[in-house]
């Protein structure tokens, strides 16, 4: 089995995880910029983080035969401070030409505040100006429905944004249809406690089809499983899905979306 891990925060994971992913058939890992678990105190912290994502982490992954790609942004969890966000956004263009940068992400909303929305709009503008792919984080738990609607409104109102170049991540049963109906891609995140279980993710595939949809582990510094994608592939096999259908969801689909960047080559 070969698969692509389209969303993983590998700077928070050990080299053992890289090894386990490689042994499970992972061909490439894609790392959106994320909240560190604490607020960075200045724009310099982001500069160092973007260097880590574009210089250091690809070397770490390469030791296990894995290609490493990344997305850049300021995460919505740090978007209440608009001045800091403006400084970080001004920093991003100098990194966009680096060979492993796929686009702007994971932008989005967390608590659905006005400042988060303003920073989201600024980063959509950045993506539009530089013709970048967009990866969107949707809020957690009780905030997901409202946040997904607000995010879709922002994206649909900007006519420069092509929906097929946007992935809306962390969909669940109450948001997946509105994302797919909007012509965007949908990401299902497989988490042990929140978001989707493997069984529920496969339910959504069986209900909504396999077009414009991918699965990811979104493994980070919290409770998460870097092998969630191959484990879900195994669950698909148990449910009688054929090898070709499994490969489409865990390999071909993410490849189709990501290669729109022009940099995603395996």
């Amino acid at each position, binding site marked *: 089995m070969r698969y692509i891990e389209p969303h993983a925060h590998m700077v928070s994971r050990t080299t053992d995880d890289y090894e386990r992913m490689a042994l499970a058939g992972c061909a490439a890992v894609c790392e959106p910029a994320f*909240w560190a678990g604490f607020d960075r105190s200045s724009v310099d912290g982001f500069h160092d983080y973007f260097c880590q994502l574009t210089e250091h982490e690809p070397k770490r992954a390469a030791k296990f035969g894995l290609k490493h790609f990344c997305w850049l942004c300021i995460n919505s*969890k740090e978007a*209440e401070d608009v001045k800091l966000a403006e400084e970080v956004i001004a920093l991003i263009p100098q990194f966009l030409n680096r060979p492993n940068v796929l686009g702007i992400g994971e932008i989005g909303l*967390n*608590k*659905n*505040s*006005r*400042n*988060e*929305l303003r920073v989201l709009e600024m980063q959509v503008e950045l993506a539009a100006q530089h013709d970048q792919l967009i990866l969107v984080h949707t*809020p*957690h*738990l*009780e*905030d*997901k*429905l*409202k946040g997904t*609607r*607000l995010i879709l409104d922002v994206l649909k109102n900007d006519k420069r944004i092509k929906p097929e170049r946007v992935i809306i991540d962390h969909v*669940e*049963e*109450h948001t997946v249809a509105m994302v797919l109906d909007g012509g965007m891609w949908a990401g299902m995140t497989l988490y042990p406690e929140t978001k989707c279980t493997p*069984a*529920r993710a496969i*339910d959504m595939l069986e209900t909504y089809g396999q077009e414009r949809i991918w699965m990811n582990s979104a493994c980070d510094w919290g409770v998460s499983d870097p092998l969630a994608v191959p484990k879900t592939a195994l669950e698909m096999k*148990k*449910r*009688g899905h054929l090898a070709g259908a499994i490969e489409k969801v865990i390999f071909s689909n993410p490849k189709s979306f990501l290669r729109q960047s022009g940099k995603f080559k395996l």
Partner: protein
Amino acid sequence: MTKQQVLDLYFLNARHQLIDVAAFLDRVERADGKDDFRLKSFRAALTKLGGREKQKAKAVLLAFSDPTTKPIAKAAGKSACGAHAGSH
């Protein structure tokens, strides 16, 4: 999959999870103090399970969701708790 295959693959796990939910309710009802909005949402979500309606997972998620449409003035924190105080 046929119904029989679904039951063969998932029944024991679903039974286990249902008993865990029942035990959680026993535990919280046994405890001293007052309920809060989370338990109210939880009980509202439980009512979505008994009928013949389809899309029960979606109905449960909606029962826990913030139904408002306008952005809030300011994020007071970063975490979500799983239920919205004004949902029910």
